């Protein structure tokens, strides 16, 4: 996983609530056995017409948003299925940060595990950032994870909250399996205790 420290880039406005995981990546694209290459499937039903041509009205098909690294959206982003293909598709497209008033739990979790930073900010602030994003090329937004601020194009700094452990893992690009493996003895002794108390779980 790539570390996330600071990011300055183009933000795409996606003023929709309940952007579900079927919107982010429809089920027909889940048949891959790899994590990469899903960028072309991101938002497929919105991005392409029935004949496969691009829908010129969709934000990510417009310049400069084809190069967007940040997405600004409305409430309940990422609701629906547990498919990690959703953050994989966003990441492969180039998105490293999603800003919204709130997120569905599983998507929120999955994002962190793939080096995408989901930032929760109140709706009024998301609306301001949405206006910034609409200015396109001339309005780059910066994210500073170390300092926990979003910097607007006019220089205003907006602080955001983030879980300290997740911040640590993101800043260092750490995978949490390795960390848990170091607790093997604690897991062994849990299993011994559980087997004594609930032997039926151990066949």
């Amino acid at each position, binding site marked *: 996983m790539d570390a996330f420290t600071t990011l300055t880039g183009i933000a795409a406005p996606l*003023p*929709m*609530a*309940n952007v*579900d995981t*079927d*919107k982010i990546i*429809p*089920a*027909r694209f*889940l*048949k*891959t*056995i*790899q*994590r990469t290459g899903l960028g072309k499937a991101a938002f497929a*039903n919105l991005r392409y017409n*029935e004949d496969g041509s691009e829908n010129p009205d969709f934000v990510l098909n417009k310049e400069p948003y084809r190069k967007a690294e940040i997405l600004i959206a*409305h*409430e*309940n982003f990422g*609701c*629906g*299925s*547990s*498919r*990690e293909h959703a*953050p994989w598709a966003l990441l492969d497209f180039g998105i490293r940060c999603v800003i919204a008033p*709130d997120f*569905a*739990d*599983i998507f929120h*979790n*999955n994002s962190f*595990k*793939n080096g995408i930073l989901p930032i929760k900010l109140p709706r009024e602030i998301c609306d301001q950032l949405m206006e910034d994003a609409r200015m396109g090329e001339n309005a780059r937004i910066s994210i500073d994870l170390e300092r926990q601020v979003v910097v607007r194009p006019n220089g205003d700094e907006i602080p955001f909250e983030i*879980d*300290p*452990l997740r911040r640590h893992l993101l800043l260092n690009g750490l995978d*949490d*399996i390795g960390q*848990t*493996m170091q*607790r*093997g003895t*604690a*897991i062994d002794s*849990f*299993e011994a205790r*559980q087997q004594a*108390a*609930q*032997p*039926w*779980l*151990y*066949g």
Partner: protein
Amino acid sequence: MSATKPRTLYDKIFDAHLVETLPDGTALLYIDRHLVHEVTSPQAFEGLRMAGRPVRRREGTMAVIDHNIATDESRYTGRIEDPESRLQVETLEKNVAEFDVPYIPLTDARQGIVHVVGPEQGLSLPGMTIVCGDSHTSTHGAMGALAFGIGTSEVEHVLATQTLLQKRAKNMRVTVDGVLPKGCTAKDIVLAIIGKIGTAGGTGHVIEFAGSAIRALDMAGRFTVCNMSIEGGARAGMIAPDETTFEYVKGRPFAPQGEALERAIAWWKSLPSDEGAHFDTEVVLDAAEIVPMVSWGTSPEDVLPITAVVPDPASAKDEARRDQLQRMVEYMGLTPGQKLSDLKVDVVFIGSCTNSRIEDIRAAADIVRGKAVAPGVRAMVVPGSGLVKKAAEAEGLDAVFKNAGFEWREAGCSMCLGMNPDKLTPGQRCASTSNRNFEGRQGPGGRTHLLSPAMAAAAAITGHLTDVREMA
């Protein structure tokens, strides 16, 4: 936590699986049962392979295939047509062989949708922590277990360590008291709940469903309710284990037996929430006021009684909601003010992990018996597992459906999602017993109306969405 403080069902199961608390308060939670399917696992096994890690507890794991497969005879006779689907299925088979993970193959009568198979086999038991790379893992919470969906990175984490890093969720209790009116089912209860709390209403919470109307449900109904917890934003839904649960568990292949069962039941009886346990959020519904429900829009919160009309976007409370309603009305091909019961359907799908158990199939058969599917309607029944299919056939229910003009199919996820040959074509309108009505969920351009098995059966007979209470 002191031993005397009253705890919820969720708190008790969480506490009983706590391996360690990390310095920042994150819990390392032990996972008793890990269910695996072909869509969300390939990258996880690949991760293990690259790191040279084995599966920590193979007997805590079970793999099945359900999402990609055809539901007609072709699954037994030939190769899977679609090369990508085939690769995903073959990859799972290769992975379970390489990592020595227990697996129910396609040709096995026990094969089916992972959330039907788990409880049916006794793999899902009260008091357990159960995970699967699938959001509808919440289904297994009906056993009185803590069950939730995880992403592929977490699938890898569980395979490698049999644990997960978790933050404690908030407790929410949804109480449904009273007697459900005739014609209403568990599906109508849960659609009414989601209509009330909204698709983000349960975010950050685990929901415990309680009250006399929930207690009165059989296990099939309880699975239906817990299945859709995720549609209300909650990662998990649970129902306290009781005699109904214990009766269900008895005799299942992977369930404890004899003295072990007695001992297990003694522990399971200690799990229900204590008197006075704290719930961060409480929601109350009166069962007597529930009517047969149907979704009209493209989010599961957009549900209405079948007696209602299509909402008018102009009546929305603000501009954002108006735009949303407008988009839904257009996508669904509706006219504001139109009666929902006037909507003609092209397809009827009875199946999915929400409603494909024998009780669901019986309820649909009761409506269909002696009648015929309306001309021009494609209607299908897809049992949740090979064993459900067999049981239905033993009762002669397959004949009831086939005689009426229904397709009677093999077990799998089928038309619940557009990932196998069973799909809607653009513009088709479907009465579906599944759980998601998102744009394109059942196939690009498809229009989904969520409802109960009885309501779906009624729609198949009349050719339009129908109030099942009017069916003779």
